[in-house]
């Protein structure tokens, strides 16, 4: 170890300007290991402290709303997959529910309960990614590797039902394309048996971990009034203190018959968001169990259907299309758009992984929508990010970004 002698120390002269406090500009650019998705922040920094920030989005703008003006209703479902791609079934089923609201279709009980199972599985998979990635950004890689194996189980359930892992394109207008077969029920049971133990171990890694608590408590907080002013919804708002959940405020798909609680935080910081998401996963598990129980309790006529009776919009089964005349004609009419939907406009919102995902559909009676607008929660709450990180260190800014669960596909749509 070389010690700088006194004589040498005098020779090291620092130029005058470096002793003044100047702010530096740092580009937390579109490609960065910390940003999960592509959005840019230009930060003015004084050392490691952030003085001001400016956010830019639009690096993955794919013009979904313009594409939807030229596609029939079924062709819009693959677009909704790619909004919040961590929990794609919620987007798909939300879109189908919007069209069903436009048509005025009443769902049978069994279809609603099956939809609840799929949506809660999607919510678990979304929160798993978010929470494990908070761990990765704080430096703990084990939680991520440990938990991804159980996301593979959820993917296997989707594959059994719809054929796709990530971009599932699940369901039809009016229900599901096929009933859940025996293998799918066994996989759901396997998931329900194995997952609670894993979630407990995952909580044990982070909940009372001193390093994690010191890194996340008091970091990236937002007050409730400010959050409402911005239009926050979802786990970010619930962590700030308000229990606004669309499943209890404006229930859809028979959620009013289920018994679940809505977890709420206090300060809205990173620790609260992490805890709210964990508790929501426990509630989702309980919802899936209740839904499976309710399906098993249905008797007689109610225990059969996996879709509603809406032949004008529900694509018939392929074996019937190739053999029977009526189904072939319906198949032809649906694909070619010979059937006119009603004229009107409808707004329907579902509780996505990040908050209120709304679909505003204006129909003029044609094959495609006249105007389709997605109310995307990520886009609305990312506006608050530059305000939240001012005054904090850059490592706290990274943790705040990953805890707010920014999905770039949903932000730019």
């Amino acid at each position, binding site marked *: 170890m070389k010690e700088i002698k006194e004589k040498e120390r005098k020779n090291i002269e620092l130029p005058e300007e470096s002793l003044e406090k100047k702010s530096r500009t740092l580009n937390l650019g*579109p490609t960065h290991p910390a940003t999960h998705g592509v959005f840019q922040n230009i930060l003015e920094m004084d050392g490691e402290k952030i003085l001001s920030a400016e956010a830019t989005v*639009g*690096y*993955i703008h794919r*013009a979904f709303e313009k*594409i939807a003006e030229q596609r029939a209703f079924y062709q819009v479902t693959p677009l909704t997959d790619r909004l919040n791609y961590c929990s794609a079934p919620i987007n798909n089923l939300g879109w189908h529910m919007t069209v069903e609201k436009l048509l005025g279709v009443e769902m049978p009980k069994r279809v609603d309960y099956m939809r609840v199972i799929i949506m809660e599985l999607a919510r678990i998979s979304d929160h798993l990614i978010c929470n494990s990635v908070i761990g990765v950004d704080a430096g703990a890689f084990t939680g991520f590797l440990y938990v991804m194996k159980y*996301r593979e189980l959820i993917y296997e359930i989707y594959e059994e039902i719809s054929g796709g*892992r*990530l971009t599932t394109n699940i369901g039809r207008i009016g229900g599901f394309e096929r009933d859940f077969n025996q293998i799918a029920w066994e996989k759901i049971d396997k998931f329900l048996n194995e997952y609670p133990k894993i979630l407990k171990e995952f909580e044990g890694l982070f909940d009372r971990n001193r390093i994690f608590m010191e890194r996340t408590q008091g970091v990236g907080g937002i007050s409730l009034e400010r959050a409402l002013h911005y239009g926050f919804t979802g786990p970010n708002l619930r962590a700030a203190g308000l229990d606004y959940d669309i499943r209890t405020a404006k229930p859809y798909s028979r959620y009013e018959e289920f018994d679940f609680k809505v977890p709420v935080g206090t300060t809205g910081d990173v620790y609260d968001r992490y805890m709210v998401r964990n508790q929501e996963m426990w509630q989702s598990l309980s919802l899936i169990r209740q839904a499976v129980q309710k399906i098993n309790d249905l008797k007689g006529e109610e225990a059969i259907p996996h879709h509603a009776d809406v032949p004008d919009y529900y694509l018939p089964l392929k074996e019937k299309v190739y053999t029977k005349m009526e189904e072939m004609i319906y198949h032809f009419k649906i694909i070619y758009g010979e059937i006119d939907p009603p004229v009107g406009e409808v707004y329907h919102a579902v509780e996505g992984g990040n908050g209120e995902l709304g679909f505003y559909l204006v129909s003029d009676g044609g094959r495609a929508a006249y105007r389709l607008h997605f109310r995307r929660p990520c886009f609305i709450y990312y506006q608050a990010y530059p305000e939240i990180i001012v005054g904090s260190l850059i490592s706290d800014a990274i943790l705040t970004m990953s805890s707010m669960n920014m999905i770039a*596909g949903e932000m730019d749509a």
Partner: protein
Amino acid sequence: MIFNKRPVTHNTNVKLVEMPDMYQGEGFGAMQLSKVVGLARKNSIWPLPFATSCCGIEFMATMASHYDLARFGSERLAFTPRQCDLLMVMGTIAKKMGPVVKQVYLQMAEPRWVMAVGACASSGGIFDTYSVLQGIDQIVPVDVYVPGCAPRPEAILDGILKVQELVGNEDIRRRNSPEYQEMLRSYGIL
């Protein structure tokens, strides 16, 4: 005394990398430089995951323990282009993002390879719109395309194996040859 409660199992089916053919003698072996260099390079590719959208989540599943990417030598994901060999572009590239991809490609040092994962990076995918670049081969030269929307992790691993084949068999003078320089010039690089 230590008792083994579990019978010891040795994995006898271990696959070793084959030594390429060389002219051997006592204590020496002679072969082409490009083969040795290719063998070393192909089993230690460091990728840069340029994940923009849904294919990025399938990449995260590939990197996780179920479909392990690290067993092919990609243990360290270099997040900076200065230290990586393979640029994996996963997800839709919009026109706003195009200059960023080009700049990242320019910062990479030779030898460098590019893999386009997913339908959006290969050809624009389902988004034939005014704001989406129809394939990244409009701006950077691509070596391997992995189709799918989103491709299964096995498909991404298949793409990595194809890149390994390319890397192992590459001619050592390829990067200085006039055809390669001509190709780069056609993209506006150089």
